């Protein structure tokens, strides 16, 4: 950031003397090139954002009928049992994917990063490929894979370990179902990030630590982990942001509902139901703000923890 400032002031000093039209030309061109993006951005992001502030303070029925309610929406949210269930489900799912998926992704990345691995590109491709499927489509797949009598998972577990073919994944164990489906879909995606991060680990340091008698675990803790920490923080943040916005997977898998006893209801699904099924766009906006504030706080914490290394240039 600072170096950039110095640069620009230098240029300005140089330009000020005889070639001033050049700076003017650059300014016009700059706005010209920014304009198309800025126009759409203001219309479809900034304007809705301001509107979201107003909406959150009103009760609506569809886009036309509104009544102001002040902070009523937020007060109602705190006492709304369905919203609290949605928060609980979403947070449990997020923790599940954080503590199961990310260690697995890191472990696979460490394995794939070993120099003696053959067909590395093939393994990476296979493990990454579910990330291309898209949540709506993987929801369709897992709606059948996790079916009671006909589903792939129960059938395979039954053949291998005599598991109960009638095990009710989608009828009772919805949270584990969601975690399994997203494990298949996103582990490889996170692995690719960790693999990229592992390229920052200095081989000479690892070798030196090995010569000094440090075992594999100590080498990992002292050399590898500090080197991948910045990207690791980014991956954790990305994973939490993605998980907290879970919608398509349960919505489609559970046939457009939160499932039995709303065990698959998530925050964004509740936002969708309130806004577009019940028609209260104000209440939906209030839910959106709660989510946004929560995620922004997390992003701030992550920036503090990882020393602002990603966002700056």
């Amino acid at each position, binding site marked *: 950031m600072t170096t950039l400032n110095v*640069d620009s002031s230098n240029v300005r000093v140089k330009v000020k003397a005889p070639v001033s039209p050049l700076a003017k030309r650059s300014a016009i061109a700059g706005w010209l090139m920014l304009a198309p993006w800025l126009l759409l951005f203001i219309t479809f992001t900034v304007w809705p*954002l301001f509107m979201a502030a107003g909406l959150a303070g009103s009760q609506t029925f569809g886009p036309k009928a509104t009544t102001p309610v002040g902070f009523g929406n937020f007060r109602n949210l705190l006492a709304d049992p369905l919203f609290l269930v949605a928060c609980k489900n979403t947070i449990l799912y997020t923790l599940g994917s954080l503590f199961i998926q990310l260690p697995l992704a890191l472990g696979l990345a460490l394995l794939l990063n070993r120099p003696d691995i053959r067909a590395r590109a093939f393994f990476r491709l296979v493990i990454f490929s579910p990330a291309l499927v898209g949540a709506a489509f993987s929801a369709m797949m897992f709606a059948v894979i996790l079916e009671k009598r006909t589903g792939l998972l129960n059938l*395979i577990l039954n053949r291998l370990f005599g598991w109960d073919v009638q095990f009710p994944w989608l009828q009772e164990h919805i949270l584990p179902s969601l975690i399994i489906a997203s494990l298949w879909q996103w582990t490889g995606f996170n692995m690719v990030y960790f693999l990229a991060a592992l390229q920052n680990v200095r081989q000479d340091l690892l070798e030196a630590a090995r010569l000094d008698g440090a075992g594999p675990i100590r080498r990992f803790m002292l050399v590898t982990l500090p080197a991948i920490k910045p990207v690791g923080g980014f991956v954790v943040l990305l994973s939490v942001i993605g998980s907290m*916005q879970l919608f398509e997977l349960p919505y489609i898998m559970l046939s457009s509902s939160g499932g039995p006893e709303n065990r698959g209801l998530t925050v964004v699904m509740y936002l969708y139901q309130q806004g577009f099924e019940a028609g209260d766009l104000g209440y939906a*906006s209030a839910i959106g703000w709660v989510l946004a504030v929560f995620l922004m706080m997390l992003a701030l914490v992550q920036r503090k923890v990882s020393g602002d290394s990603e966002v700056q240039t």
Partner: protein
Amino acid sequence: MNTRISRILQSGVTHAGLVFVSVVFLVPFLWLIATSFKTNSDVAESVLLPVGDGLFGVAWDRLNLDGYRKLFNESPIWSGMIASAFLASVTAVCATLLSSMAGYALAKLRFRGHKLALGLVMAAVIIPGPLLLAPGFVVLHKMGLLDSYWALILPAAAPAFGVFLFRQAAIGAVPDTLLEAARIDGCGEVRMFFMVALPLLRPMVGAFMLITFLGVWTNFIGPQVVLQTPGKFPLAVVVAQLRGTYYQEYAMMMAGTLMSVLPVLILFLMLQREFISGLTSGAVKG
């Protein structure tokens, strides 16, 4: 000698583990293909292909195309494919063009308000999409854009994240000296972007186009909220509606899913290097 044996053993175990993991990740795909050709009763009876006395012990004659026939005759899958292909490619091109121009301008040109615009981009990167869902709907309603493709293309054509990525790429890949030289030769600023900067940004252009394409292709909530006419639905919505409430036609559901997933998988296989480098560049550079 001893260390060599243990090293070979270790490498063998690692490879075996990776093969096992790959099989676990591949099986749902193989099952998806197999299920799209099976009858409902065979889905329950066999894991992948139905067992019988045909070649390799598989009952090939019990596989059929009924799922595909139903899919193409009874659901708007064709119009879904056309809609998805149209929306994804138009949005990818527009979003890449607009954000590369804006990102380059913020990286390489100095103008009044430059700081403000940059701050706007940085703030916008962390706004979660669902917050804009309800107010975005009101804005689209006010502009009379509901139930049209514009409502999906225009908002997606101005991603803050794209500007952020292209600004970083331009800082790294476009040298100021080159721009100075072109300026002295009398090259106009906009022309300079297309002739000098854009070729240097090519890797990011490819990656960002792919990422945007994939994002639009798999987007469900956007079209679900904005579109009302079934004939306009893209694949994600069409396929999600293949799920019956009481009776499930597994073959048809999986045929539809396969038809939606396959084009993207093929595209990715052809362009995978650019894709992966693009995905990780936001995290690793900087």
